[in-house]
């Protein structure tokens, strides 16, 4: 099936999305990893075409293949508003650069963005509801409780990493998710630095310059994150691990782009940001312990250590110099929006932790598998990851194939006649060997 004869199942943005995804930067990749370019971000046009845009995701199907595709698309929309330059210079990437920031791509992104945002984040409107007349006392009581509950909560993801049979594979899966924000840290925050909004603007800027290392590149948080990656043998280029981002983690990153791009979402952003800044310090201290347990002295934990320290300050600044003063100054609507931001970020964080925990604890195993006669045949010569929308059987008909489910640690090698059962909700990709063929089909009930 080609893009042009794919069924048009979606709503009014289908054509716009299709035009955007046909850009050269979004075409398929033969490899599981993206190298040497920040612009190549494959979008499977056929799967994008099947996204039912007018029917927003609900919490029950939020971790799904349409969710993955919509979040990848949105990330490209947002990031085409930020500047990326290749680490080794633009000379060989001029055409990609021009395409990524072309007027047509930006126009299509702006046209399709609102509906794509509704598709991904629309469920938050009913998942979080606020009633009554809010004031600053209620805001303070709420943010204090939210911070306390979160900082004292169990950390099942970190425990799962430490208890994993392959702790490095598990830790690096988490690093790849964190790279979504870590390698471009505070880009979303930068979208609210302009304008004129009083003393709180300067308070926000103080937090921002810490994130940017006071103008010293080696102290910039994204530099520290890159050094964390290098210290464990991971690539430090933005989106090298494009195919291994979980939908929930892309969404968490997209959320902050969304609420900083829309000025009317400013208070929602402040709520979410203040909540995170105030809970980060103990979270990052716990990460240092886990990563030391996994890697010993080899890992560069300065990224975690810096946050464990500075976010003690950022948490206080964000709550007492931003959130509460903004509430006092701007009243009930602003307060409700800030509470909404806190709760939306908590909910997205919970969904992200559940997704990551399930991916960490999934241990794919090769089984004997007859090819699925009616199954979807994988295209040779291109690599893609997808989220299983049902328990799925990957069956290798001929040749060999590798099942990828984490960015490091290598694939599970499969020979002809073998397969893997992929549980619903899990991210996976199949790299076909030379001349190999494989199918995807519903896993038979007895095998579940």
């Amino acid at each position, binding site marked *: 099936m080609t893009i042009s004869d794919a069924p048009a199942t979606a709503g009014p943005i289908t054509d716009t999305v299709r035009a955007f995804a046909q850009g050269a930067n979004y075409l398929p990749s033969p490899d599981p990893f993206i190298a040497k370019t920040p612009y190549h971000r494959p979008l499977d046009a056929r799967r994008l075409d099947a996204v039912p845009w007018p029917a927003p995701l609900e919490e029950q199907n939020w971790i799904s293949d349409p969710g993955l595709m919509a979040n990848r698309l949105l990330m490209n929309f947002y990031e085409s508003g930020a500047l990326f330059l290749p680490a080794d210079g633009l000379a060989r990437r001029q055409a990609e650069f021009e395409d990524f920031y072309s007027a047509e791509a930006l126009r299509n992104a702006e046209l399709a963005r609102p509906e794509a945002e509704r598709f991904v984040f629309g469920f938050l409107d009913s998942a979080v509801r606020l009633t009554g007349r809010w004031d600053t*006392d*209620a805001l303070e009581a709420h943010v204090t409780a939210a911070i306390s509950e979160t900082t004292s909560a169990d950390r099942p993801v970190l425990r799962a990493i430490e208890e994993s049979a392959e702790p490095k594979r598990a830790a690096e899966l988490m690093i790849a998710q964190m790279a979504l924000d870590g390698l471009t840290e505070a880009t979303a925050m930068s979208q609210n630095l302009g304008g004129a909004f009083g003393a709180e603007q300067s308070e926000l800027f103080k937090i921002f310059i810490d994130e940017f290392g006071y103008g010293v590149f080696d102290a910039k948080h994204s530099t520290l994150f890159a050094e964390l990656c290098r210290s464990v043998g991971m690539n430090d280029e933005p989106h090298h691990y494009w195919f291994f981002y979980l939908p929930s983690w892309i969404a968490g990153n997209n959320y902050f782009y969304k609420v900083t791009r829309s000025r009317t979402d400013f208070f929602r952003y402040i709520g979410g940001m203040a909540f995170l800044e105030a809970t980060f310090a103990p979270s990052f201290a716990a990460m240092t312990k886990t990563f030391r347990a996994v890697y010993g002295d080899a890992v560069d934990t300065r990224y975690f250590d810096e946050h464990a320290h500075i976010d003690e300050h950022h948490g206080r600044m964000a709550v007492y110099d931003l959130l509460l003063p903004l509430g006092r100054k701007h009243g009930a609507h602003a307060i409700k929006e800030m509470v909404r931001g806190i709760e939306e970020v908590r*909910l997205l964080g919970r969904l992200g932790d559940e997704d990551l925990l399930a991916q960490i604890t999934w241990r794919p195993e090769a089984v004997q598998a007859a090819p699925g006669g009616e199954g979807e045949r994988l295209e040779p010569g291109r690599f893609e990851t997808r989220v299983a929308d049902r328990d799925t059987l990957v069956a290798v008909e001929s040749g060999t194939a590798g099942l990828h489910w984490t960015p490091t640690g290598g694939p599970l090698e499969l020979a002809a006649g073998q397969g893997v059962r992929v549980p619903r909700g899990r991210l996976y990709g199949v790299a076909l060997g030379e001349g190999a063929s494989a199918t995807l089909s519903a896993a038979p009930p007895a095998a579940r």
Partner: protein
Amino acid sequence: MSGRLRVRFGPGDNTVRVGDELYFRIERDAEVSVIHSRCPHRGGPLHLGTVSARGGAELLRCPWHGTEFPLARLCAKGVPAVQVGGEVHAYPPAAPGDSAHSAHQIVFAK
């Protein structure tokens, strides 16, 4: 210190008592509001009032003197409350030393 107390409405809780004050929950279109059960007229127990529809609006009638209030306005002026999934937390005003207790009262105002 905050002048409000965080109280949780568990799945079976229809009221909560903070100090001497009672608050009750009421749900419309899956949205939960928390209302102070003290009639502004003479302090009657609004949770024992009745709700009726008239002229396209719902009215809550106090059981003591029959004073009626638009329910939408009571909800809009209600106790700040946030609902995530089945969890509802509300922030009624509280004096130092106050504590909150879930209560299971007869509630007619539904």
